[in-house]
């Protein structure tokens, strides 16, 4: 891992970082990755990811839920006519 990787990750995660922070994160991440790399030595053989699958879906019936539209829209940093307002994308 090098500083370019950190820069790339910062862009992917949409987090603005100063050069100093990037360097400090690089050194932290190197340490942590060195530690977690020990999983490489574990032989998993033919173990497959096993999940106990069961249906969590309910029937498509109308059920009332209590929620406050006002409380939700009030938390928008910017709104107009009850809609969330963001900068143009294209």
């Amino acid at each position: 891992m090098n500083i370019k990787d950190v820069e790339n990750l910062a862009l992917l995660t949409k987090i603005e970082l100063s050069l100093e922070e990037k360097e400090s994160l690089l050194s932290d991440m190197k340490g942590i990755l060195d530690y977690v790399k020990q999983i490489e030595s574990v032989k998993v053989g033919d173990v497959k990811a096993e999940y106990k699958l069961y249906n969590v879906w309910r029937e498509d019936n109308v059920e009332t839920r209590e929620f406050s539209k006002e409380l939700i829209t009030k938390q928008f940093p910017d709104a107009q006519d009850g809609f969330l307002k963001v900068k143009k994308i294209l």
Partner: protein
Amino acid sequence: MIDLTTLTIAIARKKLDAKEFSAVDLASIYLGEIKKKNKELNVYLEIYDDVLEQAKIADEKIARGESTPLLGIPLAIKDVILIQGRKVSAASKILENYLASYNATVIDKLAKQGAVFLGRTNTDEFAMGGSTENSAYGVTKNPHDPGRVAGGSSGGSVAAVTANLALGALGSDTGGSVRLPASFCGIVGVKPTYGRVSRHGLIAMGSSLDCIGPIAKTVTDAEIIFNAVKGHDILDSTSIVDTTYSKVTIKKVIGVPWDLINGEGVDSKVQENFTQSVKKLEILGFKVKDISFKNLDIALAIYYIIMPAEASTNLSRFDGMRYGLHKDGKNLLEDYLKTRGIGFGKEVRRRILLGTYALSAGYYDAYYGKAQMIRNMLKKEFALAFKNVDLIITPTVPSVAWKIGEKSNPLSAYLADIFTITANIVGVPAISLPSGNVLIEGKKLPLGIQFMAPHGREDFLFEIGKKFEAL
């Protein structure tokens, strides 16, 4: 005068019902204590301004002859659990002034019983840490030694109960965040079976690991809170029902993974205290058996892959658009970069970057994929072990509470989770109980013992917990 040091939820229930004191009396005393001690300990991020009104409503119900276990009981709530209309910040700048738009299911359940919410408690930012040193609002101090951390991430909730600033509390536990501070402060902390307590309304960190858990002075009190908040919830698709896991027979055998406990990095005082606890369990009539796991020591490594990976995904919702902090840039991309750059603290950024790395193309199989496979192997090993033992015990933490600022290297702080993370990785319930003290620099510092039970068997934990506590 009510003596808070000896008061428990169970005792308070009797006295409230007998009208020896009112819920308003009780809440007032707690508010007074909070006023005296909160500044030094930094336990509460906010004390609600309607505590006495809540208590008054409880008193009216008591006057009508109603009685539920938590009616009129003053509780502290970790700042990651939503209460409609109240602030919830996850101890982060990115949610500093956010008002919750709905109630967490656990809050609905507690409110239905008439519990009194005193305030929201400090935590590591987004519950990421083991000491509350990562809170954007300062560290919570250990009531036994204010020079040391209270543990984390539910440090505020645990310190509140320890310092008699609440009678009980809720925390959340992703890798030990209820049990570790409980050990550092000498009280009881429970991490339920994965899915046993609904997480609807809990700010998510690692979704395959997160649990909400009770914090209390005694095992009975923890059980009272657990019984109040548990249960299937249609709003949480991962929540389980009472019949999800099949019953197991009691063998009166306890397993101890001695090779992990005697390994390096575990304080000799912790080992000594643990050995004494094991002897006590033998006196109680339990057979103690040495067990070993092939993949136990690797659990911490897979945790620090799975947890950040899931956290990086969960925290993508904090984009400055829908709620919380918004920093304006020249365009949408700059809005994101600035908001998240300013809003997230150092540990949170570290985990988001780390998780994104572990999930990125080319690394996914080597990190997240492999970690999941090892997780399955460990689950199988645990299922096998629980065929022969009722409980698996370890110390809760390999050390006593550390000094504030002592662990500047993130990895050294992560290693404190060595005993607690396994229960989250495997999904089994676990409890931390006080197991004694050690005298360090003139201060009596608590130690804890952890019991893990098979899936769905919290009752094993409460049963042995009460016996252990009585010794």
